[in-house]
């Protein structure tokens, strides 16, 4: 008769950046079941954000520290829909450029973290070194490394000057040059392949059932990327693979990094001149559903406003919420030593999951 052992993975674990608890049921070294326990990072943000719709712009940036500009852009687009205004063309281009910058920092963090989970410290350091260049660039353009505070309802608050544009294009060339050998390591290194190929497979049916989005969904064959509908005129095509294992997820992120560099260049070249904001007067009233493709997947904001400064309901749907739940389908059948790498390859953002 098999004896199963129960091991708690987390909430404090060197591999985790944020607290999450997974109760692993083990038969010798093989995982036969997993139960995910949340609740270590719940801040009650949905109720706090509904208190004053002007303060919410700054609060929703702080839901997550890696995809903060995506939350802020989605909220502002939702409020613009309720007010019945549309941000000017230049503001939308600036939003695209800064969103892709933040996607670069997020993917470099995820890749570095994947390397770290395997113990490949030097690759982790190199990824973060490239990331520093982008954070410094964002600091110069927006005034802050992570929480850009660039959005306002109706547009953006700061412009990208011609000087900053030239600097960004130079930084993109440098990044492409320096990241190419690191991408080759991720693609071809024998140890990395042995620890990721065939591990943590998420089948397409399971991915659809859990609603997996972002690189996790695209690595399992679900070919949806919301940027197809949002990025007009930038000729965007999603990157899809069908193996569904940790290697596929890592490769989707590596390819998306190069894709983002190309998107930033195109968006900067085609940026039109014009105003930066459109005024939004009075109090909002109405309902809206807005979506955006954050680095981890789809972010959706449901806003219901009632004609007052307080919003009636604000619901934030984050990609990590569905991707972390999909972990319970990836984990059975794997060995205990594979679990850290599988968990990190899903790129969990617990502050997004639990808001």
């Amino acid at each position, binding site marked *: 008769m098999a004896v199963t052992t129960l091991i708690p993975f987390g909430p404090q674990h060197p591999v985790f950046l944020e607290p999450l608890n997974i109760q692993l049921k083990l038969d010798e070294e093989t995982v036969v079941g997993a139960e995910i326990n949340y*609740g270590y990072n719940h801040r009650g943000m949905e109720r706090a954000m509904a208190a004053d719709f002007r303060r919410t712009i700054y609060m929703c940036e702080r839901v997550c520290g890696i995809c903060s500009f995506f939350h802020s852009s989605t909220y502002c687009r939702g409020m613009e829909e309720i007010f019945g205004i549309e941000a000017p063309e230049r503001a939308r281009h600036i939003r695209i450029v800064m969103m892709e910058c933040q996607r670069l920092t997020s993917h470099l963090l995820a890749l570095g973290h994947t390397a770290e989970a395997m113990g490949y410290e030097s690759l982790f350091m190199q990824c973060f070194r490239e990331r520093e260049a982008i954070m410094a660039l964002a600091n110069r353009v927006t005034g802050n490394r992570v929480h850009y505070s660039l959005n306002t309802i109706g547009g953006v608050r700061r412009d990208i000057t011609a000087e900053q544009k030239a600097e960004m294009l130079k930084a993109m060339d440098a990044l492409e040059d320096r990241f190419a050998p690191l991408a080759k390591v991720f693609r071809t290194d024998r140890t990395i392949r042995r620890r990721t190929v065939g591990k943590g497979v998420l089948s397409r049916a399971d991915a659809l059932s859990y*609603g997996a989005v972002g690189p996790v969904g695209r690595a399992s064959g679900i070919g949806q990327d919301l940027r197809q509908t949002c990025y007009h005129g930038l000729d965007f095509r999603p990157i899809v693979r069908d193996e569904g294992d940790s290697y596929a997820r890592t490769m989707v992120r590596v390819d998306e990094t190069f894709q983002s560099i190309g998107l930033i260049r195109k968006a900067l070249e085609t940026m039109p001149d014009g105003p930066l904001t459109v005024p939004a007067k009075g109090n909002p009233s109405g309902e809206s559903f807005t979506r955006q493709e954050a680095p981890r997947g789809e972010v*959706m904001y449901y806003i219901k406003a009632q004609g007052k400064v307080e919003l009636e*309901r604000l619901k934030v749907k984050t990609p990590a919420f569905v991707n972390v739940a999909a972990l319970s*389908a990836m984990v059975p059948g794997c060995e205990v030593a594979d679990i850290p790498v599988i968990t990190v390859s899903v790129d969990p953002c617990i502050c997004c999951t*639990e808001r």
Partner: protein
Amino acid sequence: MSTHPNAEAIAKIREMSKDNGTRLVTIVAEEYVPGGLELIYVLDAGGELRTVRSRSGLDDEQESLSSVFKGAENMEREIIDLLGARFEGVKGGLFLMPGGVVAPLRRAAAGGE
């Protein structure tokens, strides 16, 4: 066997899910009038957002969507925690611990801001 107030919405979603490209985005729950619960099931069908709404009392037991989409279970657990609703076969306790805050998104709880 009493039918749950959202049984019609669940049947509609079950129909929609037969098309292979439909995905559950989220379930939005709100106390739209004092004591009334509105559930908005947001689905992505081929890239477009579709919503299915269901309204009932806040304390009625609702049917769970987890038999159609496995991802719905965590969403329903969150609604149980934050609004104190009830779903058949689903236990709360996702984010909130016993002995702490109870149903913080209810209007009655919004007294002390």
